[in-house]
């Protein structure tokens, strides 16, 4: 079957086509989708381009940040109101990939890709998903659980999260090739502290499971505790237990599990060292 390309300015029409045609796929930046077609995936027969302006809305002025799913990594990297997200955006691909890669696309990127989704997990983001019947708001963790079973006509339209306190959001990505390269692993963490006590931390891992995941064990080890070398060590000690990293061309599952605690320790000690 030859390829088709359909462009829509309105979401419901795009959603209807996606729901009806099993070979139709929504285009983000194309970095994963067009690659699959280039490499001979003939199950994809229709590119769906959605130009609905609401997918590009960027509201980062206040305490609640709302980002349209069509916003690119390079747009985020240069947004003055989102400097805490710049390290995440810049860790994804090279400059040309970032000019195309979107928030929405990154949420569906298979492990070991999907580092922006890791950040959204740690930020406690809500993912807005729209289809012909209406809109659902998924907490990020629930989104990743449901992601691969969503109805075919579902489209992520935006992500929303509370602006983190200065210095509370931490991120690192380990890759074999720097500055770009697919993740050996990535870690995002929200380490809010009140009077030195950690309050409801969120820690997320990328490339450590089928999707980005929260590290609840490590979070619980820190929650309500003073952030110290000792409490960090307790969290780090159990961090790998909840993970099931794959072995792929980038790294073995054994390697990922073995170095995860090392990198988590560094990230948390860096947070400790900063005056917040």
């Amino acid at each position, binding site marked *: 079957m*030859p*390829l*088709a*390309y359909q*462009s829509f300015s309105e979401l419901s029409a795009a959603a209807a086509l996606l729901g009806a045609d099993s070979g139709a796929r929504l*285009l983000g*930046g*194309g*970095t994963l989708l*067009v*690659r699959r*077609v*280039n*490499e001979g995936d003939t199950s994809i027969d229709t*590119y769906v*381009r959605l130009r609905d302006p609401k997918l590009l809305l960027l509201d980062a002025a206040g305490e609640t940040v709302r980002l349209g799913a069509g916003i690119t990594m*390079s747009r985020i990297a240069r947004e003055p109101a989102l400097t805490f997200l710049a390290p995440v955006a*810049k860790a994804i*691909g*090279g*400059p*040309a*990939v970032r*000019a*195309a890669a979107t928030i929405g696309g990154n949420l569906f990127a298979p492990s070991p890709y999907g580092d922006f989704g890791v950040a959204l997990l740690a930020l406690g983001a809500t993912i807005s998903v729209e289809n012909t019947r209406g809109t659902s708001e998924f907490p990020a963790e629930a989104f990743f659980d449901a992601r691969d079973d969503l109805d075919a006509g579902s489209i992520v339209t935006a992500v929303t999260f509370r602006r983190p306190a200065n210095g509370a959001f931490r991120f690192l990505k380990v890759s074999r090739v*720097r*500055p*770009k390269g697919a993740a050996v692993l990535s870690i995002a963490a929200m380490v809010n502290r009140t009077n030195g006590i950690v309050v409801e931390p969120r820690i997320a891992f990328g490339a450590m499971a089928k999707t980005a995941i929260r590290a609840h064990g490590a979070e619980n080890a820190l929650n309500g505790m003073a952030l110290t070398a000792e409490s960090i060590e307790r969290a780090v000690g159990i961090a790998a237990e909840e993970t099931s990293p794959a072995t792929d061309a980038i790294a073995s599952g054994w390697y990922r599990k073995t170095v995860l605690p090392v990198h988590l320790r560094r990230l948390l000690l860096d947070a400790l060292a900063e005056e917040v």
Partner: protein
Amino acid sequence: MTKVPVQLTLNGEERAEFIDSGTTLLRLLRDKMGDFTLKAGCLQGTCGTCTVLVDGEPRLACLTLAEDCAAKAVETVAGLSGNGSLHPLQQAFLDNFAAQCGFCTPGMLMAAKVLLEANPHPSRADVVEALAGNICRCTGYEPIIQAVLSVSRGSAPRAASGERA
């Protein structure tokens, strides 16, 4: 199968072709418009040899759909030298041994062009980051980095080996 028209500006010139739907910008530029300066190294967005500029932004033509580029301004290496004289980056690559097989060279030039237009005096780290999406299997990257830095310094070419910025 019905063909669709795509019209865009290529290196300042209005161009139009009829293509099969879903054709990539890479195929449009090479197979239809005869611009072979960009290369098809990997078709998966990893090697950067298809790097072109679309409305001033660096893009990988192998992952970009021609139908998404309607009415846009595309720039390739074919448009770098105007009036037959070389762009300073091209001269710098020549003077600094920044090419061996030459397959990565067009992609490197376009990535470097984008950098220098946004940041005329980049640091070495800036240059490395700007070229992060381009793979070279021959030179070990150092001569290419030196070539780009030499343009930013606006200085005479460096000697071929050993010296660092």
